[in-house]
């Protein structure tokens, strides 16, 4: 991706340089040549200008479409992470970065990634707006406090790269920096070994039990979460929303906001009881029991709790959790 962005950049640079050369060269020549002096006391009368005007209106207009289409295509690619991307969660706060790997490692102000594999970041801020910027990969994305944003990249060479916060976030803004460390596959595997602990999805499952979510969500009082993630959900208002990260987060923190059709608003708010990292773990768990590319729900961990009885789910894929 970085190479493609550079290609567009140098294309635009070349065209711009040509335009500059043309305009500046013409200005210079005219200024030298048409000095006011004896023999050139007055300017030549202007002829009709319309044809020239139209040409330098329409030609730039056509020319402008090239970088637009090119830039838009790359932007769309940036907005759509590949399906096989490694998903890492990022939580930012004044003034540090925290990364959580699917295998369980978490790190601060550093991000270890494997070379040659797309990495998708799902990110949120705990306070003000930050922006995740790695110049080497030509990517930048703001982290918002109220919903998840994503970006993705693929490192091609092992090495250490700058990580900057690019959106001004207060006193320590310029110190909110870090390193992205791209490792070869073997080194990355070795690095993963160094870390302990449960994957976010496992931690999420544990939280799910600890917080008592299962008491309703696995008994029919509240929508079943199996196979839910990424599916459309019909609300009491008749609207349909997609059960994505932001919706799940909202449902945990503000359960009354969007209630699934067919259920009562009985769920208490968990705002203040779970922090952003735990939210991400819960989401990772719900994701892990979501629809799998292969077809059947649930890939990694086994379905928690007792065997599931058929539930009065309003939508075919199950409802969401108020």
């Amino acid at each position, binding site marked *: 991706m970085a190479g493609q962005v550079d290609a567009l950049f140098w294309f635009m640079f070349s065209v711009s340089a040509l335009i500059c050369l043309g305009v500046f060269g013409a200005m210079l020549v005219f200024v030298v040549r048409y000095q006011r002096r004896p023999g050139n006391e007055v300017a030549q009368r202007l002829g009709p200008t319309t044809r020239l005007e139209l040409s330098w209106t329409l030609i730039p207009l056509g020319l402008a479409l090239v970088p637009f289409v090119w830039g838009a295509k790359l932007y769309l690619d940036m907005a759509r992470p590949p399906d096989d991307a490694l998903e890492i969660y990022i939580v930012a706060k004044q003034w540090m970065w925290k990364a959580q790997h699917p295998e369980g490692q978490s790190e601060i102000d550093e991000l270890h990634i494997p070379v040659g594999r797309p990495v998708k970041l799902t990110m949120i801020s705990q306070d003000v707006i930050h922006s995740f910027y790695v110049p080497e990969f030509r990517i930048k994305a703001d982290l918002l406090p109220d919903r998840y944003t994503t970006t993705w990249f693929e490192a091609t060479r092992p090495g250490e790269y700058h990580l900057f916060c690019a959106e001004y976030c207060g006193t320590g803004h310029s110190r909110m920096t870090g390193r992205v460390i791209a490792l070869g596959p073997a080194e990355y595997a070795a690095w993963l070994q160094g870390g302990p602990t449960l994957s976010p999805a496992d931690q999420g499952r544990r939280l799910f039990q600890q917080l008592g979510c299962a008491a309703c969500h696995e008994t029919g009082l509240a929508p079943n979460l199996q196979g839910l993630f990424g599916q459309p959900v019909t609300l009491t208002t008749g609207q349909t929303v997609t059960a994505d990260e932001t919706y799940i987060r909202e449902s945990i923190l503000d359960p009354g*906001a969007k*209630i699934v059709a067919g259920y009562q*608003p009985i769920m208490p708010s968990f705002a203040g009881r779970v922090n952003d990292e735990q939210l991400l773990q819960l989401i990772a768990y719900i994701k892990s029991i979501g629809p799998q590319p292969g077809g059947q729900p649930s890939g990694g961990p086994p379905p928690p709790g007792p065997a599931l009885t058929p539930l009065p789910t309003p939508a075919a894929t199950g409802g969401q959790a108020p």
Partner: protein
Amino acid sequence: MAERRTTLSGRSAVPTAPGLGGHVAAERPPALAEHFETLEQQHGVNALGMLVFLGSELMFFGMLFTVYTAYRLRYPEAFAMGSRHLDLALGGINTAVLIISTLMMALAEHSALRGERRWLPRYLALAILLGLLFLGIKGLEYYHHAQEQLLPGFAFSFSGPAAEQVQLFFLLYYAMTGLHAVHLTAGIGVACVMLALAWRGGLLGAEHWPLEMLGLYWNFVDIIWLFLFPLLYLVGRP
């Protein structure tokens, strides 16, 4: 200099006013400010100035309308809930009050133009009184909200789901109706000055233009309310 004199004439256009630099032309009407040529020009300047000003005002409210629309589309339920806490009867009465005050203003303008010295102060006073009545009813509504603990930032408690989003509705409600009330108050203030002038026999005939400016402004404030009313009071009523 000479060659440009041929291209841009510096000669006088108005033979009757040869020296605007120092002398005052004899037939200048007293109402004509010294930097204008004719009363018609002055009138056009004032009317256009007021219209452009109102265009600017529209964007003040437009910003609030836009924010309101964005949040209402995002939280339709909460906004309906918030709206149902407003007093539709008082809101409806207030709408009628403002519409009638606008009629009074139109009649006042008309009698000023016609030189009807007896009627002008009466219509104007009625418009002012109706404006004050509107503010009074609005104040009564605010008082009710305060009793119901619906004052974001001071005392806000809302039982039921999505309290924060209902609070957002009330914030925008206060911002929009508050800005409107500020505008109406300013209009009433100016109208009082005009009433004093009209009482002494001013503003009649050719001198009626300040009243026309006030009328434009008054009508604008009315139009804003006519949109605020359905946006704020008529949500989620079925």
